Each structure stands twice: as structure tokens, then as C-alpha cells.
């Protein structure tokens, strides 16, 4: 199929297109520069055109979601929407814990085409992929949890990085994972005994390995393999006042590790939901923002990127492999607590969270997130996330954009809506920045795509994937800086005029018109097959002793990942960029 997307106002930061009126040509699933006379014209004169949205960190499939839905029927009820008569999508259910189909409907309507599931334990990877099969309309890479895996801990402890490299390469194949996720390294393992680790250099009591060792080892291995994405790190001490120092140390601990020569991205470490890791103080009474120091570091260094994890003032659900932190939250709030320890690999925890604009701590967290948006100068180093649903459900992205684009709106909130900690305990009030559409495009499309190493998307250049979103906003006649327009921004961005994925129109005029199967994106390292076989033979006896399923039944069978995109990486030995 061929289309001409005509006369839109196009934002394509990677290709330096900043709001030019132009046509985008689509042939089959790619952007092209020539179409035949059969091409169908979609007139979008004056409308906002961007590449399809890319979310680099969200929780949309796998065991945490299942537990969440199972134990929060009150959240499911809150998001019930009967099927509409003139839409081909079905009913919706769930607010912070949407059902699988609902996730697809809501993201597509927002113009998103790629969403990363950020934490999958390999043991339950089949489950995550099975759920992805029920989510329509997205491309979904999954990040595989390694930060507390016993084999990893053993190799790190014994400094066997070659084995670790082969292990990661093999395990990504087994889990059909895209990249390496590290969550509270060593802390979730310590949770096996009801404990946590305190900071980057507190060794896990049994393994005597520290978070620092895990992060640096996995970063080295990630770069040696040349995986498209860098290590994706949820640093130690999440949600603890005073944790910004750990975060700073984490930023710094990998800075001398060399980046693989073949990768497109700039960073060697991606630190996720930094908002939760940027607090000063010793308790929730004397807590204040530590964002300024972290922002300063990010502005001065190029080896790291981050996403925000912006608070949105909702009743939502927190879910993370950082299980000890969730128990702390349970002690703090007394709300119903869910926990799941997963043998040999990780733990996870969940708890409902109520972020209120009247509660000092929530407001501090909200302001810290916005500080990052305001303070990080280069938008290519940052991505918009809410760590959905942890800080807020993903359907709040448009609301966040409305705050970022209007100082008037933000100031009004600071003056009238939110608790005074926002200005008293953070530097948010000192910024005076308004995001342009170009910058919004970067933090919701181009930057996350680049950070993920998915070069075919996040832009509209020749041969890029034809993933495009069009919003019913007349760019030249619309002032996003006005407070009075912030609701319009939210509504228009929630309901795209067109969402096009792989050259197919999925949404038209805010209605879903087509449902397609989601695509599983995973990373396949080539060139280590022999080493993998040897490692497998060594691992098997241990595996069968300490897991409770057989190694032979462990991996994700191919039929769970149809259709898939296999991102092939040729292993080329040590192949680093020179500094």
C-alpha cells in the first residue's frame, strides 16, 4: 500500500526537520521518496506530524501485571469502558493495570507504536510473550532481568566475564529478550532473606558481591557483545531519602568503560526513572531534591542517558523487581502488599500508590521529575516516562507534555494546586523553560529510539519504518504555552488523528480502525554459538538442581513470538571506541 501524508507540519529532529510543512511518502512499511500514482492521499494540512511514539520503559506484560490485575479488581473496575459501537476495538478495563487489549488500544490512540516492557524474568518470559500476543498494535522489545541472577552473581564473584558474556548472549535467546535490565543489583537477592543492600558498595551477604561489581561487569559485557541497547539500570536505594548519592556513584562507576564501536547510541548506561533516585536528606521529614547535582552530572557527561518516571497525581500501582523497596512502602502506607520471589533470578513487589497534590512527599517527587525535564539541557539524553504504572499510568503522557510546554500552566500549579514542598524543597521554581514541539518529539520519539538502539524508528528519514502519528493540532495556529490550551493538548495527544504503523493506518480520527498482532523484538547475538553450547553443558546440571523446572523446558519456544523482529548482532570480539 502507498500513501502520501500531505501537507502536515512535520517534526523529525533526527533529520533536522523542525516543523516544516511537507509530504511524507509511504510505500509498504517504509518511508520512501517516491510513490506511484496509485498512492492514496491523506490530507493532513497544517496538522502536527511526528514519528510514531517510542516508550523505552513501561510495564505492560508479564507476571507483575498479572499479580497486579489479580489483586486489584478495584483498579480494573475503575477503567471499565464498554465497547463502542463505531470502533473495532473491544471493551477497556483497568486504570493503572489495563488488560492486555486495553494497553494496545490506549497506546495506539496516543500515537505510540513501540513500547518496551522493562522487566522480564527469564523463568516467566513465556508468560510475558504470551501476554504480548494479546496486546494489539505495538512493537514490543522486552528487557531481561539479570541484576540478581545467581549465575551472573557467580561469574561476577569469580570475575569470569567471558562466561558472563556467553551467558547473557544465550539467556537473551532463551528469554527472547532485547536487552539487559538491572534492578537494585544484589538488593533483590538479599530480599531472599528479607534484607536489602544499602548503596552501591554494600555486598550481598551470601554472594559477597556489590551493586557496583554487577553494574560494571554487565556494562563491560554489554559493550563487548555490542548489544543495540546499553545496560538499563534501576539503581540501588530507590525511593530512599539520601539516595541521590548512590545514583551519582552509579552514573560515575561505569564512565571509564569503553563503548562498542558498532552501536548507534551514545550511552553505555541508561539510568531509568531517575526521579525516584534523586532525593536528599535522611528521612521523609527532612527530604529534599537531589536533582540539581544529578542534572549537573548528566549535562557534563555523555556516557549516560536517563528517563524520568514522572509523577502524575493519580491513584496507581507501583510494581518493580525492587521487592525490598515495596515492602518498605508497605510499612509506610499499610496498603495491600503483593510480592513474588522468583527462584534463582529476582524478586518483585507491588503496592497501590496514591500520589496526591496535597501530600508533601508526592509533590516533592512530582517536582523532582520536572526538574530533570527542565534541567537536562540536551533532550537527547532524556526520555519521557512515568515508569508506567509506577509514577502514573502511561495515559498521562499527554498531560505531562501539557505541563512541559506551558510555563503559565506549571506556574499556576505551583501557585495554586500543589503543596509548597514543590518550591521549598526543590529547584523547580528556578527554571524557566518551555518545551517546543521539536523537543517534545525528541523526548517521546527520537531520543528513546536512539537510546534503545532501534535505528529504524524515532525518525522519518528515507527507509525509516513507516510509524507515524498525526495529531489534530493546527501547529501554526495553536499556542501550547497558554494555560488555557493545556487541556486541548492533552485531549488531542490522547486521541491521534492518525496512527500509522508499518505503513498501515491503525487509528483514524481518534478511532481504532485496524488491529494487528504486536511484534516481539529481540536480540540475537551471532558468533558465540559454540561457546554457548559449552556453557549450556556446564550450566545444565546446576540449573536442574536449583531451578524447579527442567532446563529443556525453560526457553521461550518460537511459537510464542509470532510475529517477531530478530535484531542480529555479530559478535566481533573486543571492539571498542577509542576515547
Amino acid at each position, binding site marked *: 500500500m502507498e500513501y502520501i501524508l500531505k501537507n502536515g507540519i512535520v517534526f523529525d529532529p533526527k533529520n533536522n526537520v523542525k516543523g516544516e510543512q511537507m509530504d511524507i511518502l509511504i510505500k509498504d512499511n517504509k518511508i520512501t521518496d517516491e510513490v506511484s500514482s496509485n498512492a492514496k492521499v491523506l490530507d493532513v494540512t497544517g496538522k502536527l506530524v511526528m514519528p510514531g511514539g517510542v516508550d523505552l520503559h513501561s510495564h505492560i506484560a508479564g507476571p507483575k501485571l498479572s499479580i497486579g490485575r489479580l489483586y*486489584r479488581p478495584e483498579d480494573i473496575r475503575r477503567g471499565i469502558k464498554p465497547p463502542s459501537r463505531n470502533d473495532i476495538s473491544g471493551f477497556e478495563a483497568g486504570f493503572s493495570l489495563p488488560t492486555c487489549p486495553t494497553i494496545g488500544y490506549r497506546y495506539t490512540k496516543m500515537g505510540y507504536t513501540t513500547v518496551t516492557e522493562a522487566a522480564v524474568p527469564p523463568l516467566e518470559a513465556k508468560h510475558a510473550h504470551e501476554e504480548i500476543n494479546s496486546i494489539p498494535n505495538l512493537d514490543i522489545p522486552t528487557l531481561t532481568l539479570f541484576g540478581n541472577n545467581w549465575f551472573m552473581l557467580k561469574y561476577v564473584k569469580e570475575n569470569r566475564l567471558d562466561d558472563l558474556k556467553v551467558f547473557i548472549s544465550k539467556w537473551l535467546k532463551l528469554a527472547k529478550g532485547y536487552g539487559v535490565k538491572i534492578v537494585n543489583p544484589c538488593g533483590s537477592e538479599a530480599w531472599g532473606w528479607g534484607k536489602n543492600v544499602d548503596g552501591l558498595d554494600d555486598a550481598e551477604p551470601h554472594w559477597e558481591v556489590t551493586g557496583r561489581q554487577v553494574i560494571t561487569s554487565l556494562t563491560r559485557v554489554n559493550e563487548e557483545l555490542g548489544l543495540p541497547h546499553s545496560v538499563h539500570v534501576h539503581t540501588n536505594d530507590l525511593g530512599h531519602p539520601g539516595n541521590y548519592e548512590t545514583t551519582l556513584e552509579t552514573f560515575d562507576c561505569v564512565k571509564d568503560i569503553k563503548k562498542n564501536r558498532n552501536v548507534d547510541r551514545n550511552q553505555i548506561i541508561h539510568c531509568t526513572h531517575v526521579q525516584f533516585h534523586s532525593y536528599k536528606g535522611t528521612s521523609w521529614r527532612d527530604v529534599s531534591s537531589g536533582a540539581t547535582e544529578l542534572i549537573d552530572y548528566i549535562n557534563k557527561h555523555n556516557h549516560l542517558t536517563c528517563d524520568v518516571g514522572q509523577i502524575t497525581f493519580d491513584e496507581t500501582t507501583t510494581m518493580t523487581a525492587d521487592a525490598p523497596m515495596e515492602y518498605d512502602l508497605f510499612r509506610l502506607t499499610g496498603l495491600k502488599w503483593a510480592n513474588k520471589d522468583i527462584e534463582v533470578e529476582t524478586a518483585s513487589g507491588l503496592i497501590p500508590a496514591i500520589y496526591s497534590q496535597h501530600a508533601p512527599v508526592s509533590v516533592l517527587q512530582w517536582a523532582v521529575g520536572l526538574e530533570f525535564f527542565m534541567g537536562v539541557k540536551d533532550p537527547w539524553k532524556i526520555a519521557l516516562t512515568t515508569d508506567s504504572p509506577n509514577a502514573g499510568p502511561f495515559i498521562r503522557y499527554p498531560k505531562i507534555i501539557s505541563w512541559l510546554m506551558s510555563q503559565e500552566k506549571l506556574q499556576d500549579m505551583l501557585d495554586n494546586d500543589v503543596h509548597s514542598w514543590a518550591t521549598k524543597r526543590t529547584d523547580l521554581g528556578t527554571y524557566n523553560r518551555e518545551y517546543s514541539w521539536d523537543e517534545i518529539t525528541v523526548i517521546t520519539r527520537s531520543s528513546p529510539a536512539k537510546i534503545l538502539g532501534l535505528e529504524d524508528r524515532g525518525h522519518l528519514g528515507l527507509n525509516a519504518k513507516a510509524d507515524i502519528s498525526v495529531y489534530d493540532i493546527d501547529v501554526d495556529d495553536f499556542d501550547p504555552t497558554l494555560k488555557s490550551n493545556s487541556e486541548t493538548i492533552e485531549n488531542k495527544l490522547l486521541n491521534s488523528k492518525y496512527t500509522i504503523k508499518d505503513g498501515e493506518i491503525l487509528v483514524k480520527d481518534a478511532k481504532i480502525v485496524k488491529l494487528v498482532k504486536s511484534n516481539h523484538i529481540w536480540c540475537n547475538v551471532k558468533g558465540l554459538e559454540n561457546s554457548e553450547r559449552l556453557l549450556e553443558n556446564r550450566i545444565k546440571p546446576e540449573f536442574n538442581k536449583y531451578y524447579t523446572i527442567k532446563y529443556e523446558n525453560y526457553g521461550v519456544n518460537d511459537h510464542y513470538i509470532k510475529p517477531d523482529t530478530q535484531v542480529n548482532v555479530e559478535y566481533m570480539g573486543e571492539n571498542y571506541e577509542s576515547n
Partner: protein
Amino acid sequence: MKAINLVMTRKNSIAIEFDNILPELLFDKSLTQIQDSIIYMGNKQLPLSEFFEVEIEGDCQNSEDCLINIEGDLSRVKRIGFAMNSGKIIANSNVDFHVGALMTGGHITVNGDAESYAGREMTGGTLEIKGNVKEFCGSSYAGEWRGMSGGQIIIHGNVGKQLADFMLDGKIHIRGNCDILAGVHMSGGFIQIDGNVTQWIGGQMKKGIIVLNGKIDSMLPGFVFQEIVHNPLINGQYFIGKYRLYSGDRGVNGKGQIWIKE
């Protein structure tokens, strides 16, 4: 004052759902509009006139002055007064699930028994049931830790198990007896039971007050006897007689009060 009189003409073993039959939805509607109101029966949607004869008396300007009077065997009519906010409903029969659940205002009288889930998660208004009520009266819905938070429930007969789970606020008055597990997880509000209770009252209770004028077989170990008070003043009301005050549940460091008449 406008009265909408509904007389049942057809009863089914498959229950029907009355979500749309509320004063605030019908007070300004014409006879035909009311007759055409959607009633749910299983996977079918049918007009009210399939099941009821409708008659209107008088007129009103707002829903507060609207009364819906329902006659016939309503034991298979669910959701009477569900999420109602104003006006009055009188059901002259036994009623099915969810009567007065989620109501925020207005007045419901049931001249008969009610099935389970009466007055669940109510936030305002009055629900009065002249007969007995089954399980989960005044409780929260599955998963919700914020239960009934306002309004009052008056039950003339007996109630079943798990009364007022997770109650936060509001008043419940039971004139009859009460089965096990009343006031579990309660963290506020006031329950008065005039009849007897078998056991396990107030388990995991954090706050709130339960007054028991009848007898109880045994108390949970989490409740500690405090004192005997003559004619105590509880929740702004004097209770005549000698009352034993217990506090608990210690298992949750609770400060709930249970007053039991000697």
C-alpha cells in the same frame, strides 16, 4: 412531588437489573420515556414496560421530590437504587443483590428482605430494610480497602456474614441478630446491633465503634476488656444500661471500641 409507580407484570428466574431506574434519571421523563428505560436481563436489554406497568402521579422540578414506588415480587430484581444520589425509592417486596449499593444520597425503603451486597460502599443517604439481609451488607467491593464511608443503613431483621467489611464512616443499625465477622477491617464508623452475635466481631479492626445490645458467644483474643460504664455516651448518643468496653484488635494495634451490654 412526583410518584412513579411500577407494578411488576412478569417475573423471570433470570434476574433483571435496575441500574437505570433512579429518581435522578427519571424525574423529568415522560411516561413513554420511563416505559422505554433499559432493563438488563442476562445478555438482553429490554424496555421497562416488558416487566412493569408504569403510572405517574403528580410532578416535580428536581429529583429530590421524586418517589419511585415498586410493587410485585422483586426478589429477582437486582441493583435497585444502585448509585442513587437523590429522591426516594420504596420497594414493597423482597429485593435482590446490590440494593442501595454505592448510593450517595436519597432514601431507599425495602419492605421485605434483601439479598447480599445491600448498601455496599455507600457514601450517603439512607437505606432502610424492614426484613432480613444476607451477606456483605455495608461492606466494600472486592479489593477495595475503602468501604462504606457515609450515610446510614437500618436493618429491622437479621443480617448475614461479613457486615461492614472495611467500613470507614457512616452508621449501621441492626435491630436483629448478626452472623459472624461483623465489622472486620473496620477503620471508622458506627455499628449498633440490638440482637445477638455468634462470634468474631471486629476482627482486624483499626478504629470505629460497635455497640452490641444482645449477647455474644465469645470475643476474639485481640480485644481487651477496659472497663464497665453505666449509661455510656457513645458517638453522641446515650445508651441505657451497664456496658462492658473492649478495645482492639491488638493484632493490628487497633483502637476500635466494642461496647457490650451486660
